[in-house]
């Protein structure tokens, strides 16, 4: 579905069904240097199980126009603008990595609009090492290699994502390579520069699910649990043998956890 959000063309995948604002809405927010397709299975499932799905391409990513947003605050504002454009009065937010911080910020600032948040592969602070941050700026290929290696915990995935025969690690690398130049650095700088995580966490009024990977080397699970403790109504689910690319490595477990949380 094509929308105009904050003056730019915005693409959202609606899970294979037309968006119906009368249904409970779920917004899926991808992480840095990615797009809506990281949520292919989960977004399609919810769209076919009574939800109105908005799996976004953030500005400057995938099919969406505009420049990448410079801060997590800007992303939170953009999500509310997206809800307005889609005529969705309230929504649950499901965010991964950078997208999880955007969901947290949005929920804290707009409690009347956000009913639940599920934060996957999250941590606060989400600091990026100076070497990696520099690489995202002028050595994108090296940065992609580092991020891809750190994002995976295994060399076999059952079931694979989005289905048998897909090489999850290769697909994740290619998805990053398919994003526009500059998006990688903008995204990682936004994560690195986010400072208000604990304050915002304390302001979150809705239930929050923290879905963490026990072997996550990008956003270690202990840092996710620290953030979870700051949210008044939070649940933590840690997936064994999962790295940062939770949706790629554990698509069924991610879906099962989201189904239980969003249906509660």
């Amino acid at each position, binding site marked *: 579905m094509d929308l105009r959000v904050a003056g730019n063309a915005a693409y959202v995948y609606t899970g294979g069904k037309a968006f119906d604002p009368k249904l409970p809405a779920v917004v899926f927010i991808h992480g840095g240097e990615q797009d809506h397709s990281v949520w292919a*299975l989960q977004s399609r499932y919810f769209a076919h199980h009574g939800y109105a799905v908005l799996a976004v391409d953030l500005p400057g990513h995938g099919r969406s126009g505009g420049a990448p947003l410079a801060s997590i605050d800007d992303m939170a504002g953009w999500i509310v603008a997206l809800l307005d454009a889609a005529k969705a009065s309230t929504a649950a937010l499901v965010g991964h990595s950078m997208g999880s911080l955007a969901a947290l910020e949005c929920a804290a600032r707009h409690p009347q609009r956000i009913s639940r948040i599920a934060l996957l592969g999250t941590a606060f602070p989400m600091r990026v*090492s100076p070497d990696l941050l520099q690489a995202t700026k002028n050595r994108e290929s090296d940065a992609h*290699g580092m991020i891809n290696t750190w994002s995976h915990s295994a060399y076999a995935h059952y079931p*694979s994502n989005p289905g048998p*025969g897909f090489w999850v690690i290769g*697909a994740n690398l290619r998805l990053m390579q398919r994003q526009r130049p500059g998006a990688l650095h903008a995204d990682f700088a936004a994560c690195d520069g986010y400072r208000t995580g604990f304050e915002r966490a304390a302001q979150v009024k809705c239930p929050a699910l923290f879905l963490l990977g026990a072997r996550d080397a990008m956003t270690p699970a202990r840092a996710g649990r620290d953030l979870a403790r700051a949210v008044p109504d939070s649940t933590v689910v840690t997936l064994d043998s999962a790295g940062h690319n939770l949706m790629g490595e554990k698509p069924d477990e991610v879906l099962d956890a989201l189904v239980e949380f969003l249906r509660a």
Partner: protein
Amino acid sequence: MAAPRSLQFDTLSLHAGQRPDPVTGARAVPIYFTTSFVFRDADHAAALFNMERGGHVYSRISNPTNAVLEERVAALEGGVGAIATASGQAALHLAVATIAGAGSHVVASRALYGGSHNLLSYTLPRFGIETTFVAPRDLAAWKKAIRPNTKLLFGETLGNPGLDVLDIPSVSAIAHAAKLPLLVDATFTTPYLLKPFDHGADLVYHSATKFLGGHGVAIGGVLVDGGTFDWEASGKFPELTEPYAGFHGMDFQEESTVAAFLLRARREGLRDFGACISPASSFQILQGIETLPLRMQRHVENTRKAVEFLSKQTAVESIAYPELPSHPDHELAKKLLPRGCGAVFSFDLKGDRAAGRRFIEALRVFSHLANVGDAKSLVIHPASTTHFRMSDAALAEAGIGPGTIRLSIGLEDPDDLIEDLSRALRAAKG
């Protein structure tokens, strides 16, 4: 900060796509001999059918053993995924049929395996798909042959029979300028010698029957998607960028930014044409892939020794091997194939067809048969076998002489191979 290391080729050959079986602890890849898979409940079944969950339904569409083969070859090639097929020919057909249909056109190298040539030249035209063949080194001809209805450019990494090296960087640039993908048959090189995606190819397939398996016991193919081609931006592939009524109205490019081609190929091509591989064959090919790096090194070492020996023989008219400075693609081979130019090559004996026949019949270690890429050394004399009906003039047009011999060098002791070739050369003189 030290950059993290990702697993290297030799390690991926053993591990990619598989881990010890979580239920039984089996270290080797289990052969899942089952046609179908039990659903947890009705919702699980519906979710699998609608691609809301990943998993197996029916072994024509996917199977856990086949998936290991697919993911392993995808990892070795640097792709985003793969589909294992009943044969290399099935992989080529699946690639073409996924994005071409009646009214479509293909531009292909003229230097192709005979089976591929048959498919494109005789069979696909019956289904409305035409092919223009071009000399693989003639870059202007590739460009000129592209029509508005062209869907694909296609060639072999090492062409048949003269081992023409496909200039993948240049041909892919021509394809991409026309918003078309380049499909490459990489059977002769395997990802150990050449990774076509690194040079601009978009789709790669193998006859896994050959070097990937290496043992000559199983027929199979693998079609790999590099995930690089932007089908949406091309605008020439509604099969991938518009809703498909045959699968829940799915727009495959919308569903997967990097693997739309593979989704359609599996959800349509495997489902409807049904050329799936047996899990037993996948297992056997996987056994071969575990030793692919070691075998390819030895194949190349032995081939270099055989080429060196033959190049010194007065009974040999010429040898077509790109590592020789006399080969027209020698410089390109140095760039694209630094690890070697494979283990299949042709040479021309002086003399007539009878000399070729005497050569073949005197060999004791080489096996006379129609295959390549076996651990055992193989030989064929096209003029007395595969092309025996053709006149000398027709043979010449196909780049084959009356004394052309094709060898596939195996893993035997190289001195034994050279002794065998010496004996046959003496016999050829009559």
